[in-house]
């Protein structure tokens, strides 16, 4: 565990864009005055003719992206999750999703881990607003490699995709040769008492929690579910059947987000007790990622407590 590499998921986004830019000339990148911090800059430097800065004008940029798609391009819109999934939601809904256009959205600086910028810049609702849109695929990768693979996958997929990533370096916990199958979770650890289903860069905390639980004699299954939509119904139903209790983990509001998506499947397949780790109906605030994870209840300690609580419910 000592040799953990740390790398920001946004770097995976930037690297994948550069790599795919070489393979497919149809790829264009659109920015809104946040070129460097979203890592779209790396693409812009390599392919200046295929990068377009729209200035601070997200609504215009989103519909322009739809126009690029109509022209046969593969546009990647690159800005912060808050400014795209919130401000330009109607443009995404009615132009891109309704006509099922091939628009890709990079939602940067997702979650509270953005840190000192505070609530206005911390996207905590984007997964919810994107996942209600028909035709939209929503992916929240857990680390650098997974982000890269998600972006590469999205470039090849035809249809709207929202990929959400973060600013801060996080432990690289998946491996280069782990499979990335859209809509299919990866099993990190098998177990029998409870299943923890993770979404996004909180995976490292889940792994620590599994470790602690093992020491307490609790056998936890851990699944990493990068795709929020379409959701992996099979893995969820199986977890409910075989372990009888589920805890979801996400760096997002629990209302309407990933945990809600999992619960929708659980109640329709095999109802079992659940607990939700995530932001509990609050806005974020300024602080370091560590302080915020502690305050908002996203650390291994909180996951362990949620597991212990759901196990009580399971035993009745």
């Amino acid at each position, binding site marked *: 565990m000592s040799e953990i590499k740390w790398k920001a998921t946004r770097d995976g986004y930037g690297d994948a864009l550069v790599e795919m830019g070489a393979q497919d000339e149809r790829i264009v990148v659109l920015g809104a005055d946040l070129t460097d911090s979203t890592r779209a800059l790396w693409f812009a430097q390599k392919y200046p003719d295929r990068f377009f800065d729209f200035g*601070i004008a997200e609504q215009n940029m989103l519909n322009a992206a739809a126009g690029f798609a109509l022209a046969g391009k593969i546009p990647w819109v690159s800005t912060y999750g808050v400014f795209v999934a919130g401000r330009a939601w109607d443009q995404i809904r009615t132009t891109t999703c309704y006509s099922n256009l091939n628009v890709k959205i990079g939602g940067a600086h997702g979650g509270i881990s953005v840190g*000192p*910028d505070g609530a206005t810049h911390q996207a905590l609702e984007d997964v919810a607003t994107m996942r209600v849109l028909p035709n939209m695929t929503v992916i929240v990768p857990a680390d650098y490699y997974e982000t890269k693979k998600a972006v590469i996958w999205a470039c090849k997929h035809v249809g709207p995709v929202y990929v959400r990533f973060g600013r801060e370096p996080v432990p690289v916990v998946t491996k280069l040769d782990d499979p990335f199958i859209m809509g299919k979770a990866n099993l990190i650890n098998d177990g029998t008492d409870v299943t923890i289903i993770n979404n996004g860069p909180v995976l490292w905390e889940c792994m620590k929690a599994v470790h602690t639980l093992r020491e307490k004699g609790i056998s936890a299954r851990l699944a990493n579910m990068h795709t929020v939509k379409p959701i992996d119904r099979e893995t969820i139903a199986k977890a409910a059947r075989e372990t009888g209790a589920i805890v979801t983990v996400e760096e997002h509001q629990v209302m309407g987000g990933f945990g809600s998506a999992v619960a929708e499947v659980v109640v329709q397949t095999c109802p079992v007790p659940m607990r939700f780790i995530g932001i509990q109906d609050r806005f974020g*605030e*300024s602080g370091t990622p560590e302080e*915020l994870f502690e305050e908002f209840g996203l650390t291994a300690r909180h996951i362990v407590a949620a597991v212990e609580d759901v196990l009580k419910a399971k035993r009745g």
Partner: protein
Amino acid sequence: MVDQAKVEELKRIAHRIRCDIIWALAHAQSGHPGGSLSATDICVALYFYALKHDPKACQWEGRDRVIFSKGHVSPLIFSLLAESGYIPREELRTFRKFGSRLQGHPNVECPGIEVGTGSLGQGLSIAVGLALGLRMDGKPNRVYCIMGDGENQEGSTWEAIMSAGHYKLDNLCVILDNNGLQIDGWVEDVMGLQPLADKWRAFRWHVIEIDGHDMAQCMEALDQAKQVKGQPTVIIAKTVKGKGVSWMENMAEWHGKAPKQDQCREALKELACPAEYFDF
């Protein structure tokens, strides 16, 4: 003619505010220096000359309202509030820290802040509604909105500009910090806005163009705005991003990056800040 003694006093305040901005950034090690330093002079003229307010009673009915549409200049905003007496100056040490009232972008937990901002292109719409509401009730209060030039790229900004012109909101005054830069570079290169003044004029605004670092001009513009009838006023203040710290001036890279601690010391030295500013 403006009062020369007042000009000198405001210049001294502006100097302290610049010191405070760097000091707050030194403690936070994050934040936005460029647009804070460019808007300092005109905002000092606003707060310490033109504005009707009572820092001891921040909800006073008779107060003029200030909406900082460019919420990222929070180091400037909080320094203005500290200098005015809304918050203790010491509190600037907690800027952007966990648990602080002084968040990365301003919110209503901080006394003197009317509304949380930070998503660009929203402030002017708020100001328009506020100005309309105050006018409906026959209130004399004025509404000021501080915006960036890059922010004019937001489409919703123009919806707000159009509505203010339409409703002849002469109780509304925009201060446009025209420093010519945004994050990705020069506004004219990223998404050109020129002729900016003509655009505002076309939307039925009274336009005043000034040198935003000339304190007498700032005061005169604010005076003039109060006299304009039947139209909202925009003061297009030509400024220099990063003004006051030579190596930050006109450099896009200093938009949203905090100087390292030794750079803060350099900046404080260049500003000739008193010794007590070096305690971080």
